[in-house]
Structures are given as C-alpha cells and as structure tokens.
C-alpha cells in the first residue's frame, strides 16, 4: 500500500505550488473579511478534494490496471485512497491553521491569546473531519462513476453527508433531544471519530463497488 500512497503524493506534488498559490489568494480574500473559521474549512476541503485529481491522473495513465498486476489487492487500492485523503485533509487543515494564525496575528497586531488559539485548534479539528467526510463520499462516487463524472458529482459529495447530518438532527429533535451548546461542543469534539466511522462505511461500500469492476 505504501507504493500507492507514494505514487499519489509524487503525482500531486506537481500541483502543490498551484494549490499553495490558491490558498494564499483565498487567505487574503477571506481572513480579513470572514475571519479564520471559514478559511480553515475552505483550506481543508480544497486539499481533501485533491483526491479526485489523483483519480484523474490514474485514469489518464491507466494506472489502476497496472497496480493490479503488482502484489496488491483491490482492497489495498481503495484503502490507499483513504490514507491519501487523510494526508491531504491533514495538510489542508494545517495550512489553513497556519495561514489563519498568521492572518489573525496581522489583524490583531500581536500574538494570539490562549482562547483564540484554542478556538482555532477546535475549528481545525472540525474542518479536518468535514473534509474527510466529504472526501470519503467523493472516493465512493468516483469509483462508482469514474473520475470525469466524479468531478461533476463533487457537489453531491457535499450534499449527501449534509443531508445525513440534517436527517440525524431532525431525528434527534423528534426524539426530544435538545441541542444545547454543550451537546454541539461534544459532537464537534467527536467529529473526527464520526468522520472515521463514516469513512469506514464508505471504504466498505467502495470495496464492493471496485471488486465488481473490470479494468
């Protein structure tokens, strides 16, 4: 699996400068007007979505059929995509966090206090989870419909998890659960665990879809 992760990192490394430039432009545009919170999410989700680009590279070079002649299984291939997604989400979150901290430092004209740092870290955790959830959905859709259609379905990658969250929220309201600040705080703290659970389900479904495919 290491070879698959390495291949994606090498492939995407070529686009890294462009992505850094886009993130820098967005930082200038967003942080002074909308604050750091939105920017960390944008950075994490944008970097997470690079997973779709890796599929496009694979398609272009007919990599998948070559990978299957290596000592790897189809499950390894799917698992590697989730590992790469986690790496992209982490890089995006850390970049978002760093650029937000710099932006806030400039805006505040001085070092950040502990509360601001804590808030940023908390937001980063939630941003990582959101980008991992959306990316996991994107992997499944790309495996099912191909990289070209998968790009078009990026919006669906966002809408499906959002709809599931909304459905769960409505169910909780129906059951009489009151959404207190404490409960929301707890849910956000547990968001990485929720993201892992979500992506485990996506991984299982993706494996079944991919197992049926001919290369």
């Amino acid at each position, binding site marked *: 699996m*290491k*070879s698959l992760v*390495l*291949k994606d990192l*090498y*492939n995407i490394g*070529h686009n890294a400068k462009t992505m850094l430039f886009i993130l820098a432009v967005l930082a200038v545009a967003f942080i002074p007007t909308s604050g750091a919170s939105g920017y960390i999410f944008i950075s994490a989700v944008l970097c997470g979505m690079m997973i779709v680009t890796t599929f496009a*590279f*694979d398609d*272009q*070079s*007919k*990599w998948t*059929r*070559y990978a*299957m*002649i*290596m*000592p*790897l*299984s189809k499950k390894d291939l799917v698992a590697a995509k989730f590992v790469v997604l986690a790496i992209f989400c982490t890089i995006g979150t850390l970049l978002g966090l760093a650029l937000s901290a710099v932006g806030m430092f400039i805006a505040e004209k001085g070092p950040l206090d502990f509360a601001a740092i804590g808030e940023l870290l908390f937001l980063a955790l939630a941003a990582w989870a959101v980008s991992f959830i959306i990316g996991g959905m994107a992997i499944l859709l790309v495996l099912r419909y191909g990289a070209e259609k998968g790009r078009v379905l990026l919006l669906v990658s966002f809408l499906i998890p959002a709809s599931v969250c909304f459905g769960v929220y409505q169910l909780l309201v129906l059951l009489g659960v009151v959404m207190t600040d404490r409960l929301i705080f707890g849910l956000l703290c547990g968001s990485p665990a929720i993201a892992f659970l979500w992506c485990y389900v996506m991984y299982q479904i993706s494996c079944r879809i991919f197992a049926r495919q*001919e*290369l």
Partner: protein
Amino acid sequence: MDAILQVDNLTKHYAGFLLDHVSFSVPKGTIMGLIGENGAGKSTTINAILDLVHKDDGTVTFWGQELSSSKQLKEDIGVVFDGINFYETLTPAKVGKISRAAYKQWDGYLYQDFLKRFCLPADKEIKTLSKGMKMKLCIAAALSHKPKLLILDEATGGLDPVMRDDILDVFLEFVQDENHSILMSSHITTDLEKVADYITFIHQGKMLFCKTKDELRYQYGIIRCGADLFSQIDKTEILAYRKDDYQWNVLVADKEKAAGKYKNAIVDNATVDDILLLYVKGEQVK
C-alpha cells in the same frame, strides 16, 4: 515439459464478442507468441489471464496456482502493456521508488543497471521521453523485481525497427534462464518469428492453433496455383485459401507432401504473416 502458465478453456463474453474456450500453456524457458488481427481477443486473453477482467469460464494457473490465491505469485510475474502506466510528471527515479515499495523482490541496483543500459535519464519527467524510451522504462520496471514470467501485451507496437530489435534482444536474454518464460502478444509477426518458440493464433475469439514456430516454418506451406489445379486439391488438406487476381493461394499443413502430390504447383514456405493473412482474409473449406 513444466508449464509456468496453464490456460484451460478460457472464456469471456462481451456484447458482440466471445473469447471462446482458449487453451494453451507456456513451458519453462520458452517464448509464446500470441497472434491475431486487431480485436481477435489477444488483449482480452491477457486481461483474463491477469484477472483484470472476470472470466466467464475456464482456469488460469501460474506454477499450478491461481493468481488470486497468493499476492506472492505476482512478485514472479512482470507485465508490460502497450503504453506506460505511470503519470507523465513522474521520473524514472520516482518510478523506481514506487516499485521498490510494491515489490519485496525489487532490486534497486538491477533497476539502475537497466536505466544505464537503456540510456534512460533518472531525473527526466516521463513526458519528455520518446515512445521507445517509455517502453524501455516499462521493461526495466518489469524486469527489476526479478520475475520468472514476463507477459507483454503489444509491448513492441509503435516502435521503430532498431528499438524493437534492442528490446527483442532483452527478451531473448531473459529466457536464457531456463526457469524464465515470456507470453508475448503482438501483431508484428516478424518480431515473433525472430524470438518465439511457440505461436498461438487467435481469430475472432477462437483459438485456431497453438504450434511450435518450427512446425509452422518448416511444415506449413502455400500452394500457388490456378483454378484447375485448385479444383484437384484434396479439400481436407486445405487449412485456408484465398483467390488473388489470377492465382489461388492455398495454405497446407504439410508442404513436402503437397509438393510431391501436386507436381505442377509452386509450393512456397509460409511465414507467420502469410498464415495470419490467409486465415483472416481467406476462406476455410466447410
């Protein structure tokens, strides 16, 4: 005769195409050529052998084992497709690092030797390499994990004769080890005539024959004759025939016998190209 690869009744249906119960084996120390016109089923056969497509029927075993039974088996199989499967911004050095992480048997020194031998620059992006160099890179990657079986799907297609000759020499060198074998599909029959020990001919999804190259070269012949003589030829002896403007070309399995029997006929040697053309464009006696 130990077979490295055994294919039995391999069958695959597609809409409008049927690969129909193809069977052959690749013995140790030999090169098996897979020939046929475009769309005959050569690539489908190779894809099914490599489990890249689901088989509808039949079995494929490598050293007596099915490919799905062990990842280790893939360490001993090197594959080269008709194009490079690494993204164009990678370099040969990065291809080496990726492959090293995939194969336990990967030999980095051997890979470096191949890069030097093929004059491949380690740090140049793949997109800057010529088609021949890309093919050599694929072959270097396929050979550097020390496979015992090499499977080549149109690996020499699109290369100039000099480049093809270089690459064929590498294949001949590979089978010097009697535990090594090659399965090689190509529609460049002259390449196969140069290196193959056996020829398997697939036409419209059906296997027409699997014979030694020498049998084809020394026993098959083409009777060139007019209409009168053609009508006298025993139809059970005709494998395929084709009428040109003023001449009938008749493929027979025993040219010595034909030359003795039909004294007025010209009996030429048959090349693999001739055999392929007569089967594909000619007619068979019903």
